[in-house]
């Protein structure tokens, strides 16, 4: 104890840690906008080169990049304190890119599934994916028209959610709103209370999903 206190900096040396939050949803739903609204750095927008065969194959022969496809990926950062960062990764939820999601999802704190009520079906794959992986997620309905008239209960029903994952309305262009969404996710991921019109069902009955 004494020696730790007598050495400046030693007590401070907790390992640096970076946490991941994923932003999923269909094309044009507001992923890039959301990351840009909250990130303290100019969000990095990359076109990731992916080997079509995915990450399961370890090929060091140098031909992988010849068979690439690209996927847009946005990433932003929030510094909580020195040595503790929150990273946002936004990328489309599309079937051919699931292998990339598999990688992004490992160790992630949770996910935001962005939804546009006019095209709700576009977030189904992401919802299914996170349910099956057992990764905590919130559904954030981007209110494009600004009117908060979307009914979370109807959205929940349409998505066939079991009543556990929070559904929030948001405006991805608004910082406070994005903070709310992320805070809801963090609270939910840690098992805390959240604002939602439906009480959590005590025993979610997932007959189809097999979380691993």
């Amino acid at each position, binding site marked *: 104890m004494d020696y730790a206190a007598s050495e400046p900096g030693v007590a401070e040396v907790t390992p640096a*840690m970076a*946490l991941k939050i994923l932003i999923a949803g269909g094309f044009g739903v507001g992923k890039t906008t959301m990351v840009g609204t909250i990130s303290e750095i100019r969000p990095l927008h*990359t076109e990731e080169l992916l080997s079509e065969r995915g990450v399961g194959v370890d090929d060091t022969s140098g031909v992988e*990049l010849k068979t690439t496809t690209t996927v847009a990926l946005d*990433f932003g950062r929030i510094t909580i304190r020195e040595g503790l*960062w929150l*990273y946002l990764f936004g990328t489309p939820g599309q079937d051919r890119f699931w292998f990339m999601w598999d990688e992004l999802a*490992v160790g992630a*704190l949770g996910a935001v599934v962005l939804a546009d009520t006019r095209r709700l079906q576009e977030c189904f794959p992401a919802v299914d994916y996170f349910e099956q992986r057992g990764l*905590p997620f919130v559904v954030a309905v981007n209110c494009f028209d600004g009117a908060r008239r979307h009914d979370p209960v109807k959205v929940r029903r349409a998505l066939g959610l079991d009543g556990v994952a929070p559904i929030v309305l948001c405006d991805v262009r608004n910082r406070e709103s994005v903070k709310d969404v992320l805070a809801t996710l963090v609270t939910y991921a840690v098992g805390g209370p959240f604002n939602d019109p439906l009480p959590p069902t005590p025993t979610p009955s997932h007959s189809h999903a097999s979380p691993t």
Partner: protein
Amino acid sequence: MTGEDPGPLVRLFGLTGGRARPLGESFDLVAIVTTVSTSFPPSDLIPEHLAVLSVCRRPTPVADVAAHLKLPLNITRVILGDLRREGLVTIDRPQPAAQAIDERIYREVLHGLRRL
């Protein structure tokens, strides 16, 4: 969408020798990269490698290294894998799963978000 311009791809090809995956044990996009301070970097390092060694004197997540280099994440990882193989950087495993992160961290994150 990438256009018809083959330029960037050719350049990336040069940086990675056409590899899409890093050498050695795989590592996360938010794994922490640290320059080995006692290492003796060869004098003929390419600019991207030098940039990594400079940035990572402070422990830096992979994603941030990519932002510094202005390169795609998976290309950055190939570069980092090469530097690790040369013993010039270490790459730490991040926390394995959200469930393993203790509640104090969660609370810090929550408060940090509210403060923004």
